[in-house]
Protein backbone atom coordinates (compact mmCIF):
# COMPACT_ATOMS: atom_id res chain seq x y z
CA UNK A 1 0.00 0.00 0.00
CA UNK A 2 1.32 3.44 -0.89
CA UNK A 3 -0.82 4.85 1.89
CA UNK A 4 2.19 5.75 4.01
CA UNK A 5 3.78 7.69 1.18
CA UNK A 6 0.50 9.49 0.52
CA UNK A 7 0.24 10.33 4.20
CA UNK A 8 3.76 11.74 4.34
CA UNK A 9 3.07 13.67 1.14
CA UNK A 10 -0.13 15.19 2.51
CA UNK A 11 1.52 16.30 5.74
CA UNK A 12 4.49 17.69 3.80
CA UNK A 13 2.12 19.68 1.59
CA UNK A 14 0.29 21.01 4.62
CA UNK A 15 3.61 22.05 6.16
CA UNK A 16 4.70 23.72 2.91
CA UNK A 17 1.61 25.93 3.00
CA UNK A 18 2.60 27.22 6.43
CA UNK A 19 6.37 27.49 5.87
CA UNK A 20 6.36 30.93 4.19
CA UNK A 21 4.08 32.26 6.92
CA UNK A 22 6.23 30.82 9.72
CA UNK A 23 9.37 32.16 8.05
CA UNK A 24 7.84 35.63 7.86
CA UNK A 25 6.86 35.53 11.53
CA UNK A 26 10.42 34.58 12.51
CA UNK A 27 11.92 37.28 10.29
CA UNK A 28 9.70 39.93 11.88
CA UNK A 29 11.85 39.41 15.00
CA UNK A 30 15.11 39.68 13.07
CA UNK A 31 17.44 42.54 13.95
CA UNK A 32 18.53 42.87 10.31
CA UNK A 33 16.21 44.75 7.94
CA UNK A 34 16.64 41.94 5.39
CA UNK A 35 14.93 38.56 5.50
CA UNK A 36 17.30 35.62 5.54
CA UNK A 37 20.17 37.49 7.17
CA UNK A 38 19.73 36.68 10.87
CA UNK A 39 21.32 39.23 13.19
CA UNK A 40 19.65 38.37 16.46
CA UNK A 41 16.29 38.67 18.13
CA UNK A 42 14.52 42.02 18.34
CA UNK A 43 11.07 43.50 18.73
CA UNK A 44 12.16 46.83 17.29
CA UNK A 45 9.98 46.49 14.15
CA UNK A 46 6.89 46.19 16.32
CA UNK A 47 8.03 49.12 18.47
CA UNK A 48 8.58 51.10 15.30
CA UNK A 49 4.99 50.39 14.26
CA UNK A 50 3.65 51.72 17.56
CA UNK A 51 5.37 55.03 16.91
CA UNK A 52 4.40 55.13 13.23
CA UNK A 53 1.53 57.61 12.95
CA UNK A 54 0.74 56.58 9.37
CA UNK A 55 0.38 52.94 10.44
CA UNK A 56 -1.74 53.93 13.43
CA UNK A 57 -4.09 55.93 11.25
CA UNK A 58 -4.34 53.04 8.78
CA UNK A 59 -5.01 50.70 11.71
CA UNK A 60 -7.76 52.99 12.93
CA UNK A 61 -9.39 53.01 9.49
CA UNK A 62 -9.12 49.23 9.14
CA UNK A 63 -10.51 48.60 12.61
CA UNK A 64 -13.49 50.96 12.42
CA UNK A 65 -14.47 49.83 8.92
CA UNK A 66 -14.16 46.15 9.88
CA UNK A 67 -16.28 46.53 13.04
CA UNK A 68 -18.97 48.52 11.25
CA UNK A 69 -19.01 46.17 8.27
CA UNK A 70 -19.19 43.05 10.46
CA UNK A 71 -22.14 44.38 12.46
CA UNK A 72 -24.09 45.76 9.51
CA UNK A 73 -23.58 42.74 7.24
CA UNK A 74 -24.54 40.28 10.00
CA UNK A 75 -27.62 42.34 10.91
CA UNK A 76 -28.73 42.40 7.27
CA UNK A 77 -28.11 38.69 6.74
CA UNK A 78 -29.58 37.31 9.98
CA UNK A 79 -33.32 37.71 9.18
CA UNK A 80 -32.75 36.42 5.65
CA UNK A 81 -30.84 33.38 6.92
CA UNK A 82 -33.63 32.68 9.43
CA UNK A 83 -36.12 32.92 6.59
CA UNK A 84 -34.10 30.39 4.58
CA UNK A 85 -33.96 27.99 7.53
CA UNK A 86 -37.78 27.95 7.54
CA UNK A 87 -38.14 27.50 3.78
CA UNK A 88 -35.11 25.46 2.79
CA UNK A 89 -36.48 24.65 -0.64
CA UNK A 90 -36.57 28.26 -1.72
CA UNK A 91 -33.18 28.74 -3.36
CA UNK A 92 -33.58 32.34 -4.51
CA UNK A 93 -31.57 33.83 -1.65
CA UNK A 94 -28.89 31.18 -2.02
CA UNK A 95 -28.64 32.00 -5.71
CA UNK A 96 -28.57 35.74 -4.99
CA UNK A 97 -25.72 35.48 -2.47
CA UNK A 98 -23.50 33.19 -4.57
CA UNK A 99 -22.23 35.72 -7.18
CA UNK A 100 -20.66 38.12 -4.63
CA UNK A 101 -18.58 35.17 -3.43
CA UNK A 102 -17.91 33.62 -6.82
CA UNK A 103 -17.12 36.43 -9.25
CA UNK A 104 -13.53 37.69 -9.27
CA UNK A 105 -13.06 40.38 -6.64
CA UNK A 106 -11.51 42.84 -9.07
CA UNK A 107 -14.63 43.10 -11.24
CA UNK A 108 -16.86 43.68 -8.22
CA UNK A 109 -14.47 46.37 -7.00
CA UNK A 110 -14.34 48.06 -10.38
CA UNK A 111 -18.13 48.12 -10.77
CA UNK A 112 -18.53 49.84 -7.40
CA UNK A 113 -15.81 52.35 -8.23
CA UNK A 114 -17.52 53.26 -11.48
CA UNK A 115 -20.84 53.71 -9.72
CA UNK A 116 -19.32 55.87 -6.96
CA UNK A 117 -17.55 58.07 -9.49
CA UNK A 118 -20.63 58.36 -11.67
CA UNK A 119 -22.96 59.52 -8.88
CA UNK A 120 -20.20 61.70 -7.45
CA UNK A 121 -20.01 59.77 -4.17
CA UNK A 122 -16.90 60.86 -2.22
CA UNK A 123 -14.30 58.08 -1.94
CA UNK A 124 -12.93 57.27 1.50
CA UNK A 125 -14.12 55.59 4.68
CA UNK A 126 -17.77 55.24 3.64
CA UNK A 127 -17.09 53.97 0.11
CA UNK A 128 -14.68 51.35 1.45
CA UNK A 129 -17.19 50.38 4.15
CA UNK A 130 -19.90 49.90 1.49
CA UNK A 131 -17.57 47.87 -0.73
CA UNK A 132 -16.64 45.57 2.17
CA UNK A 133 -20.21 45.19 3.38
CA UNK A 134 -21.45 44.26 -0.11
CA UNK A 135 -19.50 40.99 -0.12
CA UNK A 136 -19.58 40.55 3.66
CA UNK A 137 -23.39 40.42 3.57
CA UNK A 138 -23.13 37.37 1.29
CA UNK A 139 -20.53 35.69 3.51
CA UNK A 140 -22.61 36.43 6.62
CA UNK A 141 -25.67 34.89 4.96
CA UNK A 142 -23.77 31.74 3.97
CA UNK A 143 -22.26 31.41 7.46
CA UNK A 144 -25.61 31.86 9.17
CA UNK A 145 -27.36 29.33 6.93
CA UNK A 146 -24.60 26.71 7.20
CA UNK A 147 -24.38 26.82 10.98
CA UNK A 148 -27.37 25.39 12.81
CA UNK A 149 -29.53 28.14 14.26
CA UNK A 150 -32.95 28.26 15.87
CA UNK A 151 -35.10 25.14 15.61
CA UNK A 152 -38.44 26.00 14.03
CA UNK A 153 -40.25 23.78 16.58
CA UNK A 154 -38.98 25.92 19.45
CA UNK A 155 -40.14 29.07 17.68
CA UNK A 156 -43.55 27.48 17.10
CA UNK A 157 -43.71 26.48 20.77
CA UNK A 158 -42.92 30.05 21.87
CA UNK A 159 -45.61 31.32 19.52
CA UNK A 160 -48.17 28.84 20.85
CA UNK A 161 -47.36 30.04 24.38
CA UNK A 162 -48.30 33.55 23.31
CA UNK A 163 -44.91 35.18 22.84
CA UNK A 164 -44.89 38.25 20.61
CA UNK A 165 -42.81 38.32 17.43
CA UNK A 166 -40.32 40.72 18.98
CA UNK A 167 -40.07 38.63 22.14
CA UNK A 168 -39.46 35.49 20.06
CA UNK A 169 -36.62 37.17 18.20
CA UNK A 170 -35.07 38.53 21.37
CA UNK A 171 -35.41 35.45 23.60
CA UNK A 172 -35.49 32.49 21.18
CA UNK A 173 -34.13 33.09 17.70
CA UNK A 174 -31.16 35.32 18.48
CA UNK A 175 -29.88 33.34 21.51
CA UNK A 176 -30.18 30.05 19.60
CA UNK A 177 -28.44 31.53 16.55
CA UNK A 178 -25.54 32.80 18.67
CA UNK A 179 -22.88 30.37 17.35
CA UNK A 180 -23.72 31.44 13.81
CA UNK A 181 -23.86 35.12 14.74
CA UNK A 182 -20.48 34.95 16.46
CA UNK A 183 -18.95 33.06 13.52
CA UNK A 184 -20.44 35.54 11.07
CA UNK A 185 -19.21 38.59 13.01
CA UNK A 186 -15.72 37.12 13.27
CA UNK A 187 -15.48 36.13 9.63
CA UNK A 188 -16.83 39.38 8.23
CA UNK A 189 -14.62 41.40 10.58
CA UNK A 190 -11.56 39.50 9.38
CA UNK A 191 -12.48 39.65 5.69
CA UNK A 192 -12.89 43.41 5.93
CA UNK A 193 -9.86 43.99 8.18
CA UNK A 194 -7.50 42.22 5.77
CA UNK A 195 -9.19 43.05 2.46
CA UNK A 196 -6.96 44.50 -0.21
CA UNK A 197 -8.45 44.48 -3.72
CA UNK A 198 -11.82 46.08 -2.95
CA UNK A 199 -10.17 48.68 -0.77
CA UNK A 200 -7.60 49.48 -3.45
CA UNK A 201 -10.30 50.34 -5.96
CA UNK A 202 -12.77 52.16 -3.73
CA UNK A 203 -10.52 54.08 -1.33
CA UNK A 204 -9.74 57.14 -3.43
CA UNK A 205 -6.38 58.91 -3.23
CA UNK A 206 -4.74 59.34 0.16
CA UNK A 207 -6.95 57.02 2.21
CA UNK A 208 -5.13 54.04 3.72
CA UNK A 209 -6.01 50.84 5.53
CA UNK A 210 -3.36 48.45 6.84
CA UNK A 211 -3.29 46.21 3.73
CA UNK A 212 -3.04 49.32 1.52
CA UNK A 213 -0.16 50.58 3.65
CA UNK A 214 1.59 47.22 3.29
CA UNK A 215 1.07 47.40 -0.46
CA UNK A 216 2.35 50.95 -0.78
CA UNK A 217 5.48 50.12 1.20
CA UNK A 218 6.05 46.76 -0.49
CA UNK A 219 6.03 48.45 -3.88
CA UNK A 220 8.87 50.75 -2.80
CA UNK A 221 10.92 48.50 -0.53
CA UNK A 222 13.83 49.77 1.49
CA UNK A 223 13.35 53.51 0.95
CA UNK A 224 13.02 54.09 4.68
CA UNK A 225 13.42 51.90 7.70
CA UNK A 226 9.63 51.59 7.88
CA UNK A 227 9.41 50.03 4.44
CA UNK A 228 12.30 47.63 5.00
CA UNK A 229 11.59 43.96 4.47
CA UNK A 230 11.34 43.02 8.12
CA UNK A 231 9.33 46.08 9.14
CA UNK A 232 6.82 44.94 6.51
CA UNK A 233 7.06 41.40 7.82
CA UNK A 234 6.12 42.64 11.30
CA UNK A 235 3.07 44.51 9.97
CA UNK A 236 2.00 41.60 7.77
CA UNK A 237 2.56 39.14 10.63
CA UNK A 238 0.03 41.02 12.75
CA UNK A 239 -2.61 40.82 10.01
CA UNK A 240 -1.86 37.17 9.25
CA UNK A 241 -2.18 36.27 12.94
CA UNK A 242 -5.57 38.00 13.09
CA UNK A 243 -6.64 36.08 9.96
CA UNK A 244 -5.35 32.69 11.04
CA UNK A 245 -6.72 32.82 14.56
CA UNK A 246 -10.16 33.93 13.39
CA UNK A 247 -10.17 31.51 10.45
CA UNK A 248 -9.24 28.63 12.76
CA UNK A 249 -12.06 29.33 15.20
CA UNK A 250 -14.46 29.85 12.30
CA UNK A 251 -13.44 26.59 10.60
CA UNK A 252 -13.80 24.64 13.84
CA UNK A 253 -17.27 26.10 14.45
CA UNK A 254 -18.37 25.29 10.90
CA UNK A 255 -16.93 21.76 10.96
CA UNK A 256 -18.60 21.08 14.33
CA UNK A 257 -21.97 22.72 13.87
CA UNK A 258 -22.54 22.54 10.16
CA UNK A 259 -26.20 21.91 9.26
CA UNK A 260 -25.34 19.59 6.43
CA UNK A 261 -22.09 18.13 7.77
CA UNK A 262 -20.63 18.98 4.38
CA UNK A 263 -17.63 21.24 4.08
CA UNK A 264 -18.54 24.59 2.66
CA UNK A 265 -15.30 26.24 1.83
CA UNK A 266 -16.38 29.22 -0.20
Amino acid sequence: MPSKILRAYTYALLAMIYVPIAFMVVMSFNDSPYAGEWKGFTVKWYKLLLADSRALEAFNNSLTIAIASAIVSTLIALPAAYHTSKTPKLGVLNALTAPPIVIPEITEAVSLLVLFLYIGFPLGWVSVFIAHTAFNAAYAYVTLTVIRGADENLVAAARTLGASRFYIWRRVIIPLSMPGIVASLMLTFMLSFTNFIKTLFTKGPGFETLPILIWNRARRPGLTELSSQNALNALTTLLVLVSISIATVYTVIVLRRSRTSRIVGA
Partner: protein
Amino acid sequence: MEAGGHETPERIGDRRLAQAILYAPLVVFLSVFFYAPLVWLSYISFVDQDTGSLTLRNYLEVFTSPGYLRVFAISLAIAMETVAATLIIALPAAYYLAFGARSGERPFLIAGFLVPFWVDFLLRAIAFKNLLYVLGLREGYVATLIAMVYEYLPFMLLPLYASLSVIDPSVIEAARSLGAPRSMLLSRVIIPLSMPGIMVGALLVSLMSLTEYIVPSLLGGSQVFTVGMMIYSLFLEGGLWGLGAALSIVIVAASMILAFYASRLLAVNRNAV
Protein backbone atom coordinates in the same frame (compact mmCIF):
# COMPACT_ATOMS: atom_id res chain seq x y z
CA MET B 1 -45.22 24.65 10.88
CA GLU B 2 -47.99 27.19 11.10
CA ALA B 3 -51.03 25.98 12.99
CA GLY B 4 -54.52 25.92 11.49
CA GLY B 5 -55.60 24.86 8.03
CA HIS B 6 -58.20 27.55 7.39
CA GLU B 7 -56.25 30.63 6.56
CA THR B 8 -57.99 33.65 5.17
CA PRO B 9 -56.36 35.48 2.24
CA GLU B 10 -55.60 38.38 4.60
CA ARG B 11 -53.67 36.13 6.96
CA ILE B 12 -51.69 34.64 4.09
CA GLY B 13 -50.97 38.17 2.89
CA ASP B 14 -49.83 39.08 6.40
CA ARG B 15 -47.49 36.14 6.52
CA ARG B 16 -46.06 36.95 3.10
CA LEU B 17 -45.37 40.48 4.32
CA ALA B 18 -43.71 39.20 7.49
CA GLN B 19 -41.55 36.90 5.35
CA ALA B 20 -40.67 39.72 2.98
CA ILE B 21 -39.51 41.89 5.89
CA LEU B 22 -37.07 39.10 6.75
CA TYR B 23 -35.29 38.89 3.44
CA ALA B 24 -35.90 42.41 2.09
CA PRO B 25 -32.84 44.06 3.74
CA LEU B 26 -30.41 41.55 2.21
CA VAL B 27 -32.07 41.58 -1.19
CA VAL B 28 -32.23 45.39 -1.32
CA PHE B 29 -28.66 45.80 -0.10
CA LEU B 30 -27.23 43.32 -2.61
CA SER B 31 -29.33 44.79 -5.41
CA VAL B 32 -28.13 48.32 -4.77
CA PHE B 33 -24.48 47.67 -3.95
CA PHE B 34 -23.72 44.53 -5.92
CA TYR B 35 -26.13 43.95 -8.80
CA ALA B 36 -26.84 47.56 -9.80
CA PRO B 37 -23.12 48.41 -10.17
CA LEU B 38 -22.65 45.31 -12.34
CA VAL B 39 -25.59 46.30 -14.53
CA TRP B 40 -24.18 49.81 -14.77
CA LEU B 41 -20.75 48.41 -15.65
CA SER B 42 -22.22 46.28 -18.43
CA TYR B 43 -24.03 49.35 -19.77
CA ILE B 44 -20.77 51.32 -19.81
CA SER B 45 -19.07 48.50 -21.67
CA PHE B 46 -21.43 49.18 -24.60
CA VAL B 47 -20.90 52.94 -24.62
CA ASP B 48 -18.43 54.70 -26.87
CA GLN B 49 -16.44 56.90 -24.52
CA ASP B 50 -15.83 59.61 -27.13
CA THR B 51 -19.30 59.95 -28.63
CA GLY B 52 -21.52 58.58 -25.86
CA SER B 53 -23.42 56.37 -28.28
CA LEU B 54 -24.04 52.65 -27.97
CA THR B 55 -21.38 50.52 -29.60
CA LEU B 56 -19.69 47.12 -29.69
CA ARG B 57 -16.31 48.79 -30.26
CA ASN B 58 -15.03 48.12 -26.74
CA TYR B 59 -15.61 44.40 -27.05
CA LEU B 60 -14.16 44.33 -30.55
CA GLU B 61 -11.04 46.08 -29.36
CA VAL B 62 -10.66 43.82 -26.34
CA PHE B 63 -10.92 40.72 -28.52
CA THR B 64 -8.93 41.86 -31.55
CA SER B 65 -6.24 44.39 -30.70
CA PRO B 66 -2.78 42.78 -30.48
CA GLY B 67 -1.99 44.51 -27.19
CA TYR B 68 -4.99 42.96 -25.43
CA LEU B 69 -4.48 39.62 -27.08
CA ARG B 70 -0.92 39.53 -25.75
CA VAL B 71 -2.17 40.29 -22.24
CA PHE B 72 -4.78 37.54 -22.63
CA ALA B 73 -2.11 35.15 -23.86
CA ILE B 74 0.23 35.79 -20.92
CA SER B 75 -2.63 35.63 -18.40
CA LEU B 76 -3.95 32.48 -19.97
CA ALA B 77 -0.52 30.85 -19.97
CA ILE B 78 -0.03 31.65 -16.27
CA ALA B 79 -3.56 30.50 -15.49
CA MET B 80 -3.20 27.19 -17.36
CA GLU B 81 0.18 26.45 -15.83
CA THR B 82 -1.19 27.26 -12.39
CA VAL B 83 -4.12 24.92 -12.97
CA ALA B 84 -1.89 22.09 -14.18
CA ALA B 85 0.57 22.46 -11.33
CA THR B 86 -2.05 22.79 -8.57
CA LEU B 87 -3.96 19.80 -9.97
CA ILE B 88 -0.93 17.53 -10.01
CA ILE B 89 0.21 18.68 -6.57
CA ALA B 90 -3.23 18.56 -4.95
CA LEU B 91 -4.57 15.26 -6.33
CA PRO B 92 -2.53 12.86 -4.15
CA ALA B 93 -3.34 14.87 -1.02
CA ALA B 94 -7.04 15.03 -1.92
CA TYR B 95 -6.99 11.26 -2.47
CA TYR B 96 -5.39 10.71 0.91
CA LEU B 97 -7.92 13.02 2.60
CA ALA B 98 -10.82 11.16 1.01
CA PHE B 99 -9.70 7.53 1.36
CA GLY B 100 -6.50 7.23 3.39
CA ALA B 101 -6.99 9.53 6.34
CA ARG B 102 -8.29 8.09 9.59
CA SER B 103 -11.55 9.62 10.68
CA GLY B 104 -9.75 11.24 13.63
CA GLU B 105 -7.12 13.01 11.57
CA ARG B 106 -9.35 14.05 8.67
CA PRO B 107 -10.98 17.10 10.30
CA PHE B 108 -7.57 18.27 11.50
CA LEU B 109 -6.11 18.02 8.00
CA ILE B 110 -9.12 19.65 6.35
CA ALA B 111 -9.02 22.51 8.84
CA GLY B 112 -5.30 22.83 8.14
CA PHE B 113 -5.91 23.20 4.42
CA LEU B 114 -9.00 25.41 4.89
CA VAL B 115 -7.46 28.03 7.16
CA PRO B 116 -4.90 29.57 4.75
CA PHE B 117 -7.75 29.80 2.24
CA TRP B 118 -9.12 32.65 4.39
CA VAL B 119 -5.85 34.61 4.60
CA ASP B 120 -5.91 37.46 2.08
CA PHE B 121 -3.86 36.96 -1.07
CA LEU B 122 -1.81 40.07 -0.39
CA LEU B 123 -0.68 38.82 3.01
CA ARG B 124 0.31 35.39 1.67
CA ALA B 125 2.08 37.03 -1.27
CA ILE B 126 4.12 39.24 1.08
CA ALA B 127 5.02 36.18 3.16
CA PHE B 128 5.98 34.23 0.07
CA LYS B 129 8.11 37.06 -1.30
CA ASN B 130 10.57 36.58 1.60
CA LEU B 131 11.22 33.02 0.58
CA LEU B 132 11.83 33.90 -3.06
CA TYR B 133 14.21 36.60 -1.90
CA VAL B 134 16.14 34.19 0.31
CA LEU B 135 16.27 31.60 -2.47
CA GLY B 136 17.69 34.29 -4.72
CA LEU B 137 14.88 34.05 -7.26
CA ARG B 138 14.47 37.25 -9.27
CA GLU B 139 11.11 38.88 -9.95
CA GLY B 140 9.61 37.59 -13.16
CA TYR B 141 7.55 34.89 -14.77
CA VAL B 142 8.90 31.96 -12.76
CA ALA B 143 8.57 33.74 -9.41
CA THR B 144 5.00 34.72 -10.32
CA LEU B 145 4.12 31.18 -11.27
CA ILE B 146 5.53 29.62 -8.09
CA ALA B 147 3.69 32.14 -5.92
CA MET B 148 0.46 31.57 -7.87
CA VAL B 149 0.67 27.82 -7.30
CA TYR B 150 1.25 28.49 -3.61
CA GLU B 151 -1.75 30.82 -3.37
CA TYR B 152 -4.21 28.76 -5.39
CA LEU B 153 -3.45 25.29 -4.04
CA PRO B 154 -6.35 25.27 -1.50
CA PHE B 155 -8.79 26.35 -4.24
CA MET B 156 -7.89 23.20 -6.19
CA LEU B 157 -7.55 20.85 -3.25
CA LEU B 158 -10.95 21.48 -1.69
CA PRO B 159 -13.15 20.82 -4.77
CA LEU B 160 -11.03 17.73 -5.52
CA TYR B 161 -11.54 16.44 -2.00
CA ALA B 162 -15.26 17.26 -2.16
CA SER B 163 -15.74 15.18 -5.30
CA LEU B 164 -13.47 12.32 -4.16
CA SER B 165 -15.13 12.08 -0.76
CA VAL B 166 -18.49 11.14 -2.26
CA ILE B 167 -17.02 8.21 -4.21
CA ASP B 168 -18.04 4.93 -2.64
CA PRO B 169 -14.82 3.24 -1.42
CA SER B 170 -16.32 -0.14 -2.33
CA VAL B 171 -16.07 0.86 -6.01
CA ILE B 172 -12.33 1.16 -5.59
CA GLU B 173 -12.22 -2.07 -3.58
CA ALA B 174 -14.13 -3.81 -6.35
CA ALA B 175 -11.73 -2.61 -9.05
CA ARG B 176 -8.79 -3.65 -6.90
CA SER B 177 -10.12 -7.08 -6.07
CA LEU B 178 -10.88 -7.68 -9.75
CA GLY B 179 -7.17 -7.26 -10.33
CA ALA B 180 -6.96 -3.76 -11.78
CA PRO B 181 -3.37 -2.51 -11.65
CA ARG B 182 -2.76 0.76 -9.86
CA SER B 183 -2.35 2.78 -13.08
CA MET B 184 -5.66 1.43 -14.38
CA LEU B 185 -7.38 2.13 -11.07
CA LEU B 186 -6.26 5.73 -11.40
CA SER B 187 -7.03 6.24 -15.07
CA ARG B 188 -10.26 4.24 -15.29
CA VAL B 189 -11.87 4.69 -11.87
CA ILE B 190 -10.55 7.49 -9.71
CA ILE B 191 -9.94 10.22 -12.28
CA PRO B 192 -13.24 9.71 -14.16
CA LEU B 193 -15.18 9.68 -10.89
CA SER B 194 -13.46 12.81 -9.61
CA MET B 195 -13.97 14.65 -12.91
CA PRO B 196 -16.58 17.08 -11.47
CA GLY B 197 -14.11 18.17 -8.79
CA ILE B 198 -11.30 18.45 -11.31
CA MET B 199 -13.48 20.58 -13.58
CA VAL B 200 -14.68 22.84 -10.76
CA GLY B 201 -11.17 23.25 -9.34
CA ALA B 202 -9.67 23.90 -12.77
CA LEU B 203 -12.31 26.47 -13.71
CA LEU B 204 -12.13 28.17 -10.32
CA VAL B 205 -8.35 28.41 -10.34
CA SER B 206 -8.09 29.45 -13.99
CA LEU B 207 -10.68 32.18 -13.64
CA MET B 208 -9.32 33.56 -10.40
CA SER B 209 -5.73 33.43 -11.59
CA LEU B 210 -6.69 35.09 -14.87
CA THR B 211 -7.73 38.21 -12.97
CA GLU B 212 -4.99 37.95 -10.37
CA TYR B 213 -3.57 41.39 -9.68
CA ILE B 214 -1.51 41.10 -6.52
CA VAL B 215 0.99 38.35 -7.30
CA PRO B 216 2.05 39.50 -10.78
CA SER B 217 2.33 43.15 -9.75
CA LEU B 218 4.36 42.22 -6.69
CA LEU B 219 6.55 39.48 -8.18
CA GLY B 220 6.22 39.76 -11.94
CA GLY B 221 8.69 42.55 -12.49
CA SER B 222 8.41 44.05 -15.94
CA GLN B 223 7.87 40.72 -17.71
CA VAL B 224 4.37 39.94 -16.58
CA PHE B 225 1.22 41.93 -17.35
CA THR B 226 -2.08 40.18 -16.70
CA VAL B 227 -5.77 40.85 -17.29
CA GLY B 228 -6.13 41.90 -13.65
CA MET B 229 -3.34 44.47 -13.99
CA MET B 230 -4.89 45.61 -17.26
CA ILE B 231 -8.26 46.25 -15.59
CA TYR B 232 -6.53 48.23 -12.86
CA SER B 233 -4.57 50.39 -15.27
CA LEU B 234 -7.52 50.99 -17.61
CA PHE B 235 -9.65 52.31 -14.76
CA LEU B 236 -7.22 53.93 -12.35
CA GLU B 237 -4.40 55.05 -14.63
CA GLY B 238 -5.79 55.33 -18.15
CA GLY B 239 -9.36 56.43 -17.50
CA LEU B 240 -10.51 54.12 -20.29
CA TRP B 241 -13.74 53.00 -18.63
CA GLY B 242 -15.44 51.52 -21.69
CA LEU B 243 -12.59 49.15 -22.41
CA GLY B 244 -12.07 48.31 -18.75
CA ALA B 245 -15.79 47.63 -18.38
CA ALA B 246 -15.85 45.35 -21.43
CA LEU B 247 -12.88 43.40 -20.11
CA SER B 248 -14.51 43.10 -16.66
CA ILE B 249 -17.86 42.01 -18.08
CA VAL B 250 -16.19 39.24 -20.07
CA ILE B 251 -14.67 37.99 -16.81
CA VAL B 252 -17.94 38.31 -14.88
CA ALA B 253 -19.85 36.44 -17.59
CA ALA B 254 -17.26 33.67 -17.58
CA SER B 255 -17.44 33.33 -13.80
CA MET B 256 -21.25 33.29 -13.77
CA ILE B 257 -21.22 30.48 -16.29
CA LEU B 258 -18.64 28.70 -14.13
CA ALA B 259 -20.70 29.12 -10.96
CA PHE B 260 -23.80 27.75 -12.67
CA TYR B 261 -21.86 24.88 -14.21
CA ALA B 262 -20.11 24.10 -10.93
CA SER B 263 -23.31 24.03 -8.89
CA ARG B 264 -24.94 21.73 -11.45
CA LEU B 265 -21.94 19.43 -11.57
CA LEU B 266 -21.84 19.18 -7.81
CA ALA B 267 -25.61 18.65 -7.62
CA VAL B 268 -25.49 15.90 -10.25
CA ASN B 269 -22.57 14.34 -8.45
CA ARG B 270 -24.41 14.35 -5.15
CA ASN B 271 -27.58 12.86 -6.62
CA ALA B 272 -25.63 10.12 -8.36
CA VAL B 273 -24.24 8.76 -5.10
